[in-house]
């Protein structure tokens, strides 16, 4: 049985720090009221930064704690810091937005904090139960923030839909876990791996079915086809900074979880789950490419775009080796930067004090606000995967890994769908640069947004100059996952 020992808590120190900070800030909020919202928000950002720092200090090569339910390895460090960065940037973007929209409540940053804490636990989960607990902590917070704008019909509808479908996916996940436990007799990842790889009669059907259920549950979280249906409605309905948050941090956490579960406990069943991932990846790429074409709402378009991007990232997982996972990590990093940047641009789309969300509202932006149009164009070109922008490298590494793993069909279809997808990205550029100007968007856009857009745009633009640190960091993280 697990013996309590203070020293053994150290690997989980960042998460513990986050949890306690969250409670303290909650108290502050409760006693000071909504006046403290801005202070609490920045405090949460500070907590994210400190946590990121702590994470880099406490983790080692595969340190376990909580009786092996929690793991802090290189993979976890990479993904956690990425998720924290995404959360922090989304939160920063939301401050001004919430104040303008009159929905600035101190609970908002607190919810972000606990959602992020849930992600941390997901990423570090080394047990099916730990996985579930982390996932639910994250999801519950996300349901609330999706419906955060209670008086708005679309926002509450988004929250409710997300909740109902999320519950369904949780049910699938739990059912899958119970199947696996029933047939394999354990929920811990490392022992599961041993059991499944030492089995001489092959993998029991029950475990296989369980794996399918678990994969389906996780695919819901990463919004992969055919478990993606919630995405466009939720992305469109939720307040824009929340959408940005959805597109960045939870995606990172859920992908990390999917990768860890597939490579870790079910590593021996690679041949089986590879088929699921290939199918899901193909379907996501195709749907992301085709369904986005007819969209006129830019947030909805970004929802399909994110589905497509997950498809590309999963190409790396389908390769199932270090190069593939490394490519996936690079892809997610670049995706987070591009996604946050794009949503920051969308947040600038205000006219007469109201948000506008249609692509046509961007008409002639190049003439009314050239700097914003340029940044937007950079993100769109990058998402379309046009060199030398960052998005190209993301695609390049996953496709390279797929080719090396012999997944030619997947790589070729991936490239073809990215051509289709380029259409709607470039259409936005065309609308901004070649259409007759619509009424100018509101200015100024605010310092924080400017900084976020500038930083992400520079990252997207200049990654080509020095991609070394990102590539080596991703490679190290990928290697740690394979226990080497």
């Amino acid at each position, binding site marked *: 049985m697990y013996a309590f020992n203070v020293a053994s808590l150290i690997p989980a120190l960042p998460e513990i720090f986050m949890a306690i900070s969250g409670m303290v800030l909650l108290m502050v909020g409760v006693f000071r009221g909504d006046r403290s919202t801005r202070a609490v928000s920045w405090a949460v950002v500070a907590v994210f930064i400190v946590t990121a720092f702590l994470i880099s200090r406490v983790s080692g090569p595969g340190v376990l704690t909580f009786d092996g339910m929690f793991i802090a390895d290189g993979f976890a460090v990479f993904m956690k810091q990425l998720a924290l960065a995404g959360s922090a940037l989304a939160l920063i973007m939301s401050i001004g937005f919430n104040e303008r929209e009159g929905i600035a409540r101190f609970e908002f940053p607190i919810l972000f904090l606990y959602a992020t804490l849930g992600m941390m636990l997901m990423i570090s989960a080394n047990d099916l139960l730990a996985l579930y607990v982390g996932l639910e902590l994250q999801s519950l917070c996300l349901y609330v923030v999706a419906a955060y704008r209670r008086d708005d019909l679309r926002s509450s509808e988004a929250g*409710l839909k997300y909740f109902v479908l999320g519950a369904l996916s949780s049910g699938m996940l739990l059912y899958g876990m119970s199947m696996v436990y029933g047939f394999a007799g354990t929920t811990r990842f490392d022992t599961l791996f041993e059991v499944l790889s030492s089995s001489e009669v092959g993998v029991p*059907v029950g475990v296989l079915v369980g794996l399918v259920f678990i994969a389906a549950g996780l695919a819901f979280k990463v919004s992969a086809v*055919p478990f993606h249906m919630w995405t466009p409605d939720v992305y469109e309905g939720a307040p824009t900074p929340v959408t940005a948050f959805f597109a960045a941090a939870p995606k990172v956490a859920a992908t990390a979880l999917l990768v860890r579960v597939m490579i870790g406990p079910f590593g021996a069943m690679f041949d089986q789950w590879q088929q699921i991932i290939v199918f899901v990846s193909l379907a996501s790429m195709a749907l992301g490419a*085709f369904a986005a*074409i007819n969209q006129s709402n830019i947030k909805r378009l970004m929802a399909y775009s994110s589905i497509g991007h997950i498809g590309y990232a999963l190409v790396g997982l389908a390769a199932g080796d270090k190069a593939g996972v490394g490519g996936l990590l690079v892809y997610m990093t670049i995706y987070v930067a591009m996604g946050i940047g794009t949503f920051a641009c969308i947040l600038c789309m205000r006219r007469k004090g109201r948000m506008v969300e249609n692509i046509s509202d961007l008409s002639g932006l190049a003439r009314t606000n050239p700097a914003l149009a340029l940044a937007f164009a950079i993100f769109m070109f990058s998402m379309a995967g046009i060199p030398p922008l960052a998005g190209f490298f993301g695609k390049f590494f996953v496709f390279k890994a797929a080719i090396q793993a012999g997944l030619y069909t997947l790589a070729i279809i991936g490239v073809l769908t990215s051509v289709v997808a380029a259409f709607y990205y470039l259409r936005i550029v065309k609308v901004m640069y070649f259409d007759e100007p619509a009424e100018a968007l509101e200015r100024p856009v605010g310092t924080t947004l400017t900084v976020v857009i500038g930083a992400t745009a520079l990252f997207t633009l200049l990654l080509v100059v020095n991609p070394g640190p990102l590539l080596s960091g991703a490679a190290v993280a990928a290697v740690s996952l394979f226990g080497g």
Partner: protein
Amino acid sequence: MLQVACVFLPLLGAIIAGCFGRKIGDRASQIVCCLAMGTSAVLAIPTFIDVALHGNARTILLFEWFASGDFHAPWALKFDTLSSVMVLTVTVVATAIHVYSVGYMSHDKSIPRFMAYLNLFTFFMLTLVTADNFMQLFFGWEGVGLVSYLLIGFWFDRHSASAASMKAFLVNRVGDLGFALGIMGVFILFGSVEFDTVFPLVPGKVGESMEFMGFHGDALTLVCLLLFVGAMGKSAQIILHTWLPDAMEGPTPVSALIHAATMVTAGVYMVCLLSPMFEVAPVARDIVTVIAATIGLVQNDIKRVIAYSTCSQLGYMFFAVGVSAYPAAIFHLMTHAYFKALLFLGAGSVIHAMSDEQDMRKMGGIWRKIPFTYAMMWIGSLALAGIPFFAGFYSKDMIIESAWGAGTGVGQYAFVMGVVAAALTAFYSWRLIFMTFHGKPRADHHTMEHVHESPPVMLAPLAFLSLGAIFAGFIAYETFVGHHMAEFWRGSILILPQHPSMEHAHEAPLWLKLMTIVVAAGGILAAYYAYMVKTSLPARLATMFRPVYLFLYNKWYFDELYNFLFVRPAVRIGRLLWKGGDGVIIDGLGPNGLAAVTVGLARRAGRLQTGYVYHYAFAMLIGLVGLVTWYLFYGRL
């Protein structure tokens, strides 16, 4: 070094004027191009003296161009008597035409482009004549074809000009295909494309046979004929001659330079250059001789008249080649370059004077107003008609006498045709002069008032060329085709002793010489009678022999025949491929089809998104069931 500069200076000029013409301006482009050309011509003179007169033939190797397995082609400049004669002729005539263009094109919008093309053309022509192997020859060959196309269509905003340029290009393509096949044949037969390697091997290959498109024939004859097809295209010989009259759509200096003096003679040059091969392929030579027939004309465009005379003059050169009188062909090529350029430039001067009018029916009676041009046209025509002591007399006579001297059946045929052509040439040359300069003015009052002599920059080249047209034949006769011509050509041209047509020509009886003169004079008189004395005669003849007239007027219906046989079917096939192949199949299945499918898929994908939670949940469950089913049935295989 001199020789290299001589060849590459025009290229330099073309690059400067072509790439930076807009920056440096019209005047600077003209200066650069004329300077490059002039320097090149000046350098050609010592080269000619050294190589041709002192016998220092040489080959300057520049670099290895192709090296692939057994296949080699260096880039080298070959200077022997033959090529140095050509270099001299080309550069001198080209210089005169460059200077003339400065005046003639002074009102054009794109002077730098024009000058750059002219320079580029000269460069290609020089690489052609200095080629040391078939590949380089082909390079120059295609190069001049390209520039010819660009220059014919120089005024590309005129529909007729762009149509003519396409016609020239396409007809030449037919010839070039033959040429390319010929080069391949040479490589297969000899294993090399270098002249110095190929020619010594020729005697050993006599009688070898070769398979071509199911034919089994004498290899050398076949190769020579294929190469000759190329020459036919470029030199506008009958069957492939139709592009040349249309090529007169280009600016007049272009007609003079490319379509009279130089490019069109490339075919003649090529056959002379390859004399070691043609000498041993008698059948090929016979075909050359027969094809080089003439074409009688009643054209009304002043430039087209001269263009058809070019066809017939090239015919002379070719049948000279056919009866092994290569030196005579080159001799005529040279004199022809001078007097034909003179005629064209003179015609250009007339057109200039008549405010860009080209139709002779709208000219007349202007000789007093432009006496200098008038005189120049007389000199050119006299030379063309072969009136004694003008350049054309010596060279043309030599050719006709050689044909007579060949003593063969085809030689006799060529001789007769040559004499008839001489009469026709004289007739239509003077028809041109009488219609243009004499009689009552047929132009409107306004134009007549503006008739003026051209500026000195245009007249000076005319005067210069007229010197060539008068004296070139007299000066060069002994050297080129005299009794001691072998010392001059020094093996750059091979004539087998079995083909003594030139020796016989030297012993031609007096009546032969007199006959050609009489025939020419007869032509002139007939023209005088028809167009000066009894001016109603042509019209009456035209109505009396209407079918004949129409047949001639429509150029033997060659264009109509080709239209029917080739152009229309080609257009129809093209339309089929375009509408059916490209439009329906490629675009339909490709870009447009894919786009339509994409849009359709997009609409359907969007329709899936109903907004109902139970639909979404249903999709998830279906997905799950599908995956599980997949595994239960196939996943465990």
